[in-house]
């Protein structure tokens, strides 16, 4: 019995039309290439994985970046110098090269970490790597804001009543940073989604059996080593169009959310 989303093929691997009497196959968007899996199902499932990677990467980036920015901005001195130099250095180097350099070496140890069946293997590794290398953006944002907030009267008053640094940071500075970080988070999810496409094109993303939107595009167009030139015999335009459209819709939606949040939270910033 074919599961939902699997087309039947003959002995030569050619696709057969879905059997008339069954309603198990949808295939309303066609099949995804030589394996003939249901494009719609792959697309829906891929969206889940892509979003997991994008949101996971954003969360990891906040996890690493916010403390880093706090340390740099609040304590100043050599801590700030160290944070700033490292940040500038990593930001200067092409992100994709850093991801490639580490993912090849590290992913073999990280890939098995998965909460199956909730999270597919490889998702954790990719989002962790994205998170580590994009952590420098929230770090810079936090640092810049803390640097100015540090000099304000209310922080001075905190010092006067003997509040600890931890209390000042968590209870009084963090709420001020929340709007900026929220806006950044929405933009970052979109950016991470495109990063995931890039990682798939390099061929170091999650394994091919797990569908992601980047993976769908790269199974069609090949990796950077073996780019596939379009041929009508091999694939249809839909295999490019549908993943691209869903990526576009998601990124545009996330950007709109960010714009909306920015004008709601920081009305003086809107243009």
């Amino acid at each position, binding site marked *: 019995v074919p599961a939902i989303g699997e087309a039947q093929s003959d002995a030569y691997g050619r696709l057969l039309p879905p059997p008339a009497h069954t309603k198990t196959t949808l295939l309303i968007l066609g099949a995804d290439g030589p394996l003939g899996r249901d494009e719609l199902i792959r697309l829906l499932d891929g969206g889940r994985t892509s979003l997991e990677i994008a949101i996971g990467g954003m969360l990891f980036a906040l996890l690493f970046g916010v403390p880093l920015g706090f340390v740099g901005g609040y304590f100043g001195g050599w801590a700030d110098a160290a944070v700033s130099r490292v940040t500038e250095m990593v930001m200067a180097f*092409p992100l*994709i090269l850093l991801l490639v*350099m580490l993912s090849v070496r590290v992913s073999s140890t990280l890939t098995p970490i998965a909460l199956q069946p909730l999270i597919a293997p490889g998702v954790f590794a990719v989002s962790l790597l994205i998170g580590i290398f994009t952590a420098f*953006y929230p770090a*810079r944002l936090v640092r810049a804001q803390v640097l100015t907030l540090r000099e304000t009267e209310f922080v001075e008053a905190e010092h006067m009543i003997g509040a600890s640094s931890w209390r000042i940071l968590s209870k009084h500075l963090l709420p001020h940073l929340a709007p900026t970080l929220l806006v950044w988070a929405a933009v970052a999810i979109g950016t991470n989604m495109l990063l995931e*496409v890039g990682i798939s094109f390099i061929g170091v993303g999650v394994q091919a059996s797990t569908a992601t939107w980047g993976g769908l*595009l790269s199974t069609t167009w090949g990796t950077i*080593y073996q780019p596939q030139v*379009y041929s009508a015999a091999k694939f249809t335009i839909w295999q490019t169009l549908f993943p*691209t459209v869903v990526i576009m819709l998601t990124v545009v939606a996330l950007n709109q959310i960010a714009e909306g949040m920015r004008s709601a939270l920081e009305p003086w910033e809107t243009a």
Partner: protein
Amino acid sequence: MRRVLGFAIRRTAAAVFTVLAMVTLTFAIFWMIPGDPASFLYPNTQHVTKYEIKRADHLLGVDRPKYVQLGDYIWHLAQGDLGTAWTSIRVNADQKVVGLPVAPPLINAARVTGSIVLGGVLLVLLFSIPLGALAARFSRTALDRTILLVTLVGICLHPMVVGLIMRTFFGDDLHWLPPTGYCNFLHGSAAPVAPQNLGINAPTTCGGPIPWTEHLILPWISFALLFLAIYTRMIRTSVIETLRQDFVRTARAKGASENRVMVHHALPNAGIRVLTMVGLEIGTALGIAVYIESAFGMEGLGRLSVSILIGTLALDLPEILGVVVIVTLIVVVGNLIVDILYAVVDPRVSAFGTRPKETLSGRVV
């Protein structure tokens, strides 16, 4: 002028420091990850003996103290010597290690990438400045919304997909432009081949400005499409902000036409911001080049870097260091030029090193 000179010297020192730090970092990563240098000398041996491992370590200089390795590399680097690629080494009759130097293929690849990126940036500026100005001038109208929406398409498509679609239709199907390859700007020459060259395309032999342009038009457009959205939006925001300033009101009060206000007052301010962004995004541009080069089958720096970093046998330290040094140099020197230009151009900057506020957009792809 004196101030600018002092600033330039300080920034140059910082740039040298950055390169040295990146080299040290790469060495540190190399020492942490257990490599297998012996496999470069004995590529066909299944089981390498302990003696062979020791001999390989000695011949490659990996058995020396760590600070000696690092110091030695930096000393050679200062003389412009990037060393020998381990992937290509053999032991000759005199028991000496010989191999291909790291630098020539990297520099040759950098030329390809440089052509793509410089032309692409020019194209971005050529279109994004008028579009951004137009969107700002008619902000919140249908024209503004249309410009923003159309340019947004660019960042939602991956550059590799854009490149492959363009290559397929304009190159392979319509034969308007050559689909793959690269031609030298001046004269044809056999390019030095890196060990990682996967043999996808033969070394270039064609040359001349016209073939050069023909091969680069499609890569330029694919490159520009991605950045067009970001830059148009940035210029629009910057121009709208400037149009609210007092000096613009003064200019209008004096009777300057709206076009004059735009060209003489609003756009120069936006230009400064664009300059900064271009400096900040050199690294991103090199990352994008990876995909553009792959789509159009060019042996550029981005693609070469990825194949070196992924590696075939084991970690090829001199080649990885070569990539890190060249890429860092490009980014650092580009930033340096932008910083100095910035200090010269913007009269408001008295304390050098302060830059205008960064946009929130971050890096795409």
